[in-house]
């Protein structure tokens, strides 16, 4: 195996999330749709389901932040670090660098869907993979018009949460 598991996972199959701070350059509805698609990537291959809540307590909180944002792991402006996320044992939250040019279906900027799908892998308990073609590889590969999980990602997530019954 090439993937790595961090060592923690969620004990429930239905996870909730909220987006408490949106990026200024994208429409709220577009962000909602892209992040839902990013969760769907993992939902497609496991028994997990994800529910977007606008308010209230959730499992995974998502925020777009710049520079130092209260967790001691400051973002570094455009390029460099794009986002980070916590493993389940640390809460599962995902933070995206607001300073990046987040884009949707474009070769320009940084593709929000792809980065979100990667970060949510961390939120679910996956570490980085040294398989270059894996979603969980740490480096941003640029926009891919037809996205597909690598087998390495699928095997890894199914180690934690099992296979989807109808796959």
């Amino acid at each position, binding site marked *: 195996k090439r993937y*790595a598991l*961090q060592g923690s996972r969620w004990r429930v199959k239905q996870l909730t999330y909220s987006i408490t701070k949106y990026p200024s350059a994208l429409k709220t509805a577009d962000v909602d749709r892209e992040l839902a698609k990013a969760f769907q990537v993992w939902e497609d291959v496991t028994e997990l389901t994800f529910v977007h809540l606008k308010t209230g307590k959730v499992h995974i909180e998502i925020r777009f932040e710049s520079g130092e944002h209260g*967790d*001691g*792991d400051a*973002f570094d402006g455009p*390029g*460099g*670090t*794009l*986002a*980070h*996320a*916590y*493993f389940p*044992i*640390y*809460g599962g939250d995902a933070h995206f660098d607001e300073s990046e040019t987040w884009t949707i279906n474009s070769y320009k900027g*940084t593709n929000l869907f792809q*980065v979100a799908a*990667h*970060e949510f892998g*961390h939120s679910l308990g996956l*570490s*980085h993979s*040294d398989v*270059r073609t894996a979603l969980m590889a*740490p*480096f*941003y590969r640029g926009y891919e018009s037809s996205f597909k999980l690598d087998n390495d990602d699928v095997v890894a997530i199914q180690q934690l949460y099992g296979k989807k019954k109808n796959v």
Partner: protein
Amino acid sequence: APVSTDTQAMMYLARFGYLDPALQNPSSGALISGESVRRAIIDFQSFAGLKQTGILDPETSTWMSKPRCGVRDRVGTGYSARR
């Protein structure tokens, strides 16, 4: 900014779990053995699928300069909860 100096490379290696996080600020005068740095570079090169030279060659610098996720590659090496 591209990772082009030894100090930048060491900070990168510490930041992403290839070097002891206690050495995260190499400019402060912390002593790091050359062998530790060489092994850390080899570990990074292995992870990134590069030729494992143990030297900060141009290809290694290029990969260290790529946009990436902020989560450590080596989570077992001093990884701490962020909150």
